[in-house]
């Protein structure tokens, strides 16, 4: 239970940043373990982001076998999607943060 609190705390901390629209933790199977989005959006993000990240990683690795993807920022017209996949260590989860800094804090 202590660690659930730690997870909650991290989420709160991340959400305190300006314009954060949502945070998702996805596991390696593309299943959202924890989310602040509603269910539909979470499923969409989980499926699409995990695929995309795997692709991006494969691109990086194919360019240089020793290299690996560390962090992914997708800047769109409306917001930015930041993905921290942590491939190097466990490769168990992805952290996805969607931020529109032009908006205020949620």
């Amino acid at each position, binding site marked *: 239970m202590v660690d*659930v609190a730690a997870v909650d705390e991290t989420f709160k901390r991340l959400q305190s940043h300006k314009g954060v629209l949502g945070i998702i933790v996805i596991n390696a199977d593309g299943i959202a373990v924890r989310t602040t989005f509603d269910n539909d959006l979470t499923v969409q993000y989980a499926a699409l982001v995990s695929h995309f990240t795997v692709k991006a990683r494969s691109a990086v690795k194919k360019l240089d076998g020793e290299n690996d993807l560390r962090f992914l920022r997708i800047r769109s017209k409306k917001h930015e999607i930041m993905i921290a996949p942590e491939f190097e260590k466990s490769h168990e989860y992805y952290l996805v943060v969607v931020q529109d800094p032009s908006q205020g804090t949620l």
Partner: protein
Amino acid sequence: MGEAAEESGAPPVEDGDVPAAPATASPDEPAAAGVDDAGEPAQEPGASSESAAPADGGAPVEGSAEGGGEATSGPVDGEGGDAAGAPDGAPPPDGEAAPAAAEGEGEGGDAGAGAAEAAGDAEGPPGEEAAEGEGGEAAGDEGGEGGEGAAEGEGAAEEEAPPPPPPPPPVELEPLPEDYVPVRDRPPIPEPFLRNEEGKPVPLPGVESLFLTGTTVDLVGLQGLGPGNITRELTREVLLGDIQFRGAISDFHAYKAKIQAADYEPLIIRFNEDDVYGDGNNYEIALTAEAANVWKAIAEETESRKRLLELEAAHVAAEKAKPRSKRVRKVKPWVSMGSEVDIEEASVRPRREPIRLVVQRKRREFHQPGAKLADKDAHELWNSSQMECRPFKDPNFDMRRMEQDVAVQAVAPLRDAACQSTGAIPPRPAVTQTEALDLGPEAKAELLSKPVAERGSVAGFLERVRDLAEVAMVQNEITNIFRDDLAALNDEADGGGGGSRKETLVSEAQSFTHLTFSKNKVVSAIQWLPHRKGVVAVACTEAQSHAERVARMGRTSPAHILLWNFRDPIHPELVLQSPWEVFAFQFNPLHPDLLTGGCYNGQVVMWDLSSEADRLGRRAAAAAGGGKAGGVTEAGGAVSTSGAAADRLGGSVSAKGPDLTPPSTAMGTTLGAGGLGATEAASSSSADGDAHIPVVKHRFLTDTQFSHHQVVTDLQWLPGVEISHRGKVTKLGEGSKECNFFATIAADGKVLFWDVRVEKLLKKGKKADELLDVVWKPIHSVHLISLIGMDLGGTRLAFDFKRLDQGMFYAGSFDGELVYADFIKPEGEENPDYAKSCLQAHVGPVIALERSPFFDDIVLTCGDWQWQIWQEGQATPLFASGYAQDYYTAACWSPTRPAVLYLADQSGSVEVWDLLDRSHEPSIRVTLAATPIMSLAFNPMPASASAAQQAAQQLLAVGDATGVLRIMELPRNLRRPVHNEKKLMGAWLERQQARLADVAARQPARGAARKEAEERKKEAEAMALAEAAAREAAAKDAAAAAAAGIPPPQADRREKKGAPPPPEFDEKAEQEYLKLEARFKAQLGLLPPEANGSAH
């Protein structure tokens, strides 16, 4: 004759290489009468074995030559004898090789024989048939002479009819023999008579032609003979019995001896129905066996051919009945058309023996080492051109892979679910539906609650990646991630004043001048036509000084306003004529067909272009190429606007009273009235080629008495307001399309307001003709007084069009004053002072007074060598420029850049001031002309155009003092506003305000300080003066003392001038000074030695 015919037939025809067939060839021996170039032997049936046989069958050749033409070769043979020589009627031998000529000849023979079926035989093409028929007739006519004819005729047109192959034997019919010759290809049936030299038929030898009366016919039993059945056999006894019975009257009596001598039995009598011999007889009798045999053979042959024809027809019918695929195809034999010659020419044949070459090598040199091989370093060969196989990196071996064992589950777990599919087209209800994987809440909770240190803990993961995410988020927060850097870069590049030469160059796009109307005149006013692109109106005035004008005062001097269209740089599109020179004019901004101008004598003129606009529009449309969309719409626009204007004018007339003439009539009479109030197009004959330029005369002229009394210097339309006689202003509704008032200012100190609806002035019930009597008076008049109490010599007007109803306006004067006044007449005052303030802005006349298009309260003034920026209500200018080298002549704001001003000066230059760039000197200075520039105007843009559009097309019209109008294209950086330029300019203005405020605030202190400083300066000056005076006096004393003995002339002079030394002078100091002076003089050698010595 027969011999002749045979001989004639024998000679081979044209081709020398064709062996001639002997005339006496046996029937079995086919006469190779001719070989055609295809190599096919044209074999002919053999000639008759009996020379007695009629051989004139060769004659048709003559005919063929006539009709057929270019037969190259052909058998010419006496095949006429064929029939005779083939008594058994057998088909001719070698039927398949029978030349086509045979046909023609056969026809000829038939025709000659007069056989009716000849025509039926001829189944060839019509032309051929005709030729053949002709030939046949000719043959029949010419008879024995056919021999020569044959020699010339060289055979019939054999190429016209290649021998058709025999039809194959049908199964069910009696089969035709393999070498069957169709009947029509067979030689003709010989004639049952001979032909004499003229070709006329004569009876065969042993045949007697006789005439049998009907009685005889009945007696001997010859009844029933006729066509198809023409012979009858009679025994000799019958004939002799007839002779015996009837004696001399018997028809046979004359031939009794011959009948008795006949060598065969029974005798044959033939019906000669056509009287072929022309002797009137109707029967003939064969009295010899030979003749009888001929007849019999002919009859048999005819019979057999008839049968064969039937058989052939049956075969043809059977063939036609078969399906197309089963029919026998006729294989045409190869016919030379000359291609073998081409092949011969094209084929290459060696012309000489092949060259033989023997290469030898000595035996002992075999197997000797020829090349020397040596070792070479590989790197020497790399990159060398000799190397054939270059090293390369094979990507296949780059990656080292460990063995992999990967398994993939490709099928998602099945699940039953129901859903409503969306109606795709075509409906696909069976689309695979997928469901996202999910974990149960317990599993999730378990994952989330894993301790940090444990593998797979969410908390541990988050701890590790949190910082990364936070860094990114903070970065996003501190910079604007949505800023388009490239766009900003573009803006900076635009505003930076850099860029290529083209982007910063003010270039001349076009220039206009007209020899008659504008050359050497001053372009005193320019305006772009509102609502029309590329048309500029220019007012030209004489380049005369005031004195010259005064000298010719009172005389009208017609002046012109020219409308230049970019399409025609030579001829103005329209010329507006005015009785006086026009110094200011303006188009009605809402009804662009109306144009008013202020004249030199103070009158105001109005033109109405509505009648012209129609024409101009049409012309523009035609010039645009008849159908160009833009031109058409433009024309349409012009028409509609003119219509609107006409309606409006007319409407005001009719609104006045229903009993007036209809508007159109009113317009018409006005047109016809001429003189004062007429619009009339007249051709100008002043210059060559200008005849077509329409000249429009003014429509109305204001009444002199009520007009200005001096030159009208500025004119402004006042859209959207209604001004009453008492100077009351009513604002019309937003978006009102009414613009009926304009204001003029003149040097007589008056600002007059006019109503353009002149017809309104008509008294009710008056006819439109009396428009001439209308006195066009100003509606309202504002009198301005200058600083020195005289009439203000007004030069420029500037209204605030957004707040017209408040009545505040600026006016500039000839004396450089800037008046801020209110044209609304206060209640109850008869002679109110309209001016709120009157300030001395410039030294010379105010030549420009313009509100900034971006800041409502900012006004640009320009006069003499300086321009100033004023803020409404301020008594001092916000900003005043430094003094320029040349006298300014025109100034205006940039319509698109809030911080940019354009100024023109007397030297022919245009200055561009970018206040954000620098304010102490112009940013750009372009010399456009050698003559002073008199006016500037920007092309107007519709309000609907976006800023970018406006910036895209910006043209500056520049008029100079020699009548040339130049259209300048401005560079991009002058057209496009810098990013946030209005804001920056606002800040600049605020800084100027702050500066002014600061100056004002420090005014007292500064004044005091200045006063103090001045006082101190005065004191210091006084002290210095006193000191100097004292010193001078002392010097004089000393000099006097030193030069006591021999006073130098200088000392004398000084003594005369100098004031007496003050008594209280310090003796000691004096002594010292004198000493110094004396020494100094001695050093300079000014003093004589005695004096020097005495001094010491």
